[in-house]
């Protein structure tokens, strides 16, 4: 791949870019829409984000997504649609994946939030982060933090035996069989504009199978 500087200045090479996207360090440029002149009474709450406690006094209109990006400068979590339709904003709340754009931060008093920045242990990537790089589970990287957080939760849902719409004979409570259809159905809340789905499914499959063994 050609990595020379072009007329617009420095261009990171793809591998560097991929690694920062997977680790969640790429800053987004979308503004917050929660600020407005007639701010109402603020509300106190305490959230734990990636293991750190934050005591906050917030306009209740601030979404969890805007809190993370605009107040805590955790810009790994992305804003795609802001309406629950794309999954770019997926984070873990008490271990469960949710769309951070469709929830108010003040509703998470006492909750434990994990974002893409909280997955790696120091320099060691989370197995899913490593697998996304290994299997080319991304191109532009914008959806990637959401995809990875979603996939982390998917693995624990599988462990807990949670069914999906494509699980056969749901009434039988049998152990799950991890097919590609299951992965695709369970990841359908994370849209990838670049269409990196083949790599995403392969990355998740590799980690899921590694864990089973």
């Amino acid at each position, binding site marked *: 791949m050609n990595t020379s500087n072009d007329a617009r200045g420095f261009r990171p090479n793809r591998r560097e870019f991929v690694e920062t996207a997977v680790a969640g360090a790429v800053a987004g440029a979308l503004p917050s829409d929660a600020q407005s002149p007639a*701010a*109402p009474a603020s509300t106190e709450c305490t959230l734990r984000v990636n293991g750190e406690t934050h005591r906050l006094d917030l306009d209740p209109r601030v979404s969890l997504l805007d809190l993370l990006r605009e107040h805590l400068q955790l810009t790994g979590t992305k804003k795609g649609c802001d309406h629950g339709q794309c999954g770019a904003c997926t984070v873990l709340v008490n271990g469960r*994946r*949710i769309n951070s754009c469709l929830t108010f931060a003040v*509703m998470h008093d006492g909750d434990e939030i994990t974002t893409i920045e909280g997955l790696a242990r120091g320099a060691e990537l989370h197995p899913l982060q490593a697998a996304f790089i290994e299997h080319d589970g991304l191109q532009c990287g914008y959806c990637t933090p959401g995809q990875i957080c979603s996939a982390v939760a*998917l693995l624990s849902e599988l462990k807990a035996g949670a*069914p999906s*719409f494509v699980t056969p004979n749901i009434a039988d409570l049998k152990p799950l069989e991890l097919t590609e259809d299951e992965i695709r159905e369970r990841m359908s809340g994370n849209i990838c504009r670049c269409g990196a789905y083949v790599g995403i499914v392969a990355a998740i499959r590799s980690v899921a199978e590694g864990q089973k063994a």
Partner: protein
Amino acid sequence: MTPFTYSCPKTIEEAIVAAESGPDVRFIGGGTNLIDLMKMGVEHPRRIIDLNKLPLKMIEEHNGGLRIGALVSNTDAANHPLVRSRYPVLSQAILAGATQQLRNKATMGGNLLQRTRCYYFYDPSFEECNKRRPGSGCAAIKGYNRIHAILGASDQCIAVQPSDMCVALLALDAVVQVDGPPRSIPMRDFHRLPGSTPQIDTNLQPGQLITAIDLPPIPYGRRSVYIKVRDRNSFAFALVSVATVLDTRPDGVIRKAHIALGGVAMKPWRATKAEQLLAGKKPDENTLRAAAGAELQPAKGYRDNAFKIELAKRCIIRSVQSALRAG
């Protein structure tokens, strides 16, 4: 977004008292519909009452059936072993809706009250919408109406109720429990057809709190299925869906059929005519076609949605056929 104050009561009594403070108050469960509508400028509450600390997260045996608390997440309801094994159609219908992320947040009470996805309702830059602005007209009747109703619509509104879960609840004869004051509302009376008051979606009164959903005992509940036809395989609202529960005799004759349709009306639609025609019959192809045809006989298509009439008939036939193989 219009500024609002936020509170998070711990008891049902406090929540109900807080809701008495006026018309601009809204309860919030998962927030996945309300916050979306606030961002769109369709909803403008001045006070929000968060229900998530209320003791309404139980799934328990009740009168031989099950009681599911209003604040149980859609995920927890769908995954519960008693729901899966006794009422698999409900698990399937919930899992057919939205995405894992949304279902983790969405609550049973909020799902019951989710509003229509009519494009003109959702976007206030359209002036005409009788549901959003009573008396302003209906942009969908003369506009693009592919997702709209074929049954029970009026010349005021042709929107559909979009919930998958509600279709299964109707087929299961569920009962919605309400407080402020206490009341039981059977699913079949919960949602309303538009008539001349399309701004009113349900028979819940303002300020009333949904506390639980009761499922009656249905010994043949395992013989059930939810099918959903949509524009893509996952993460899309239904064009047409059907929940079917069958009580059959060993010789294959249907004793009783419960059939409910989604995506066709402003309420989940109980196919009582089809049910009557199927009772006591062995459901061969002709019987099924006749039953589905009778149900859809009063259907009316608009410019872009007439295809739903034939689609609904085929979905009824297919769902009864697959329910016969289930359980």
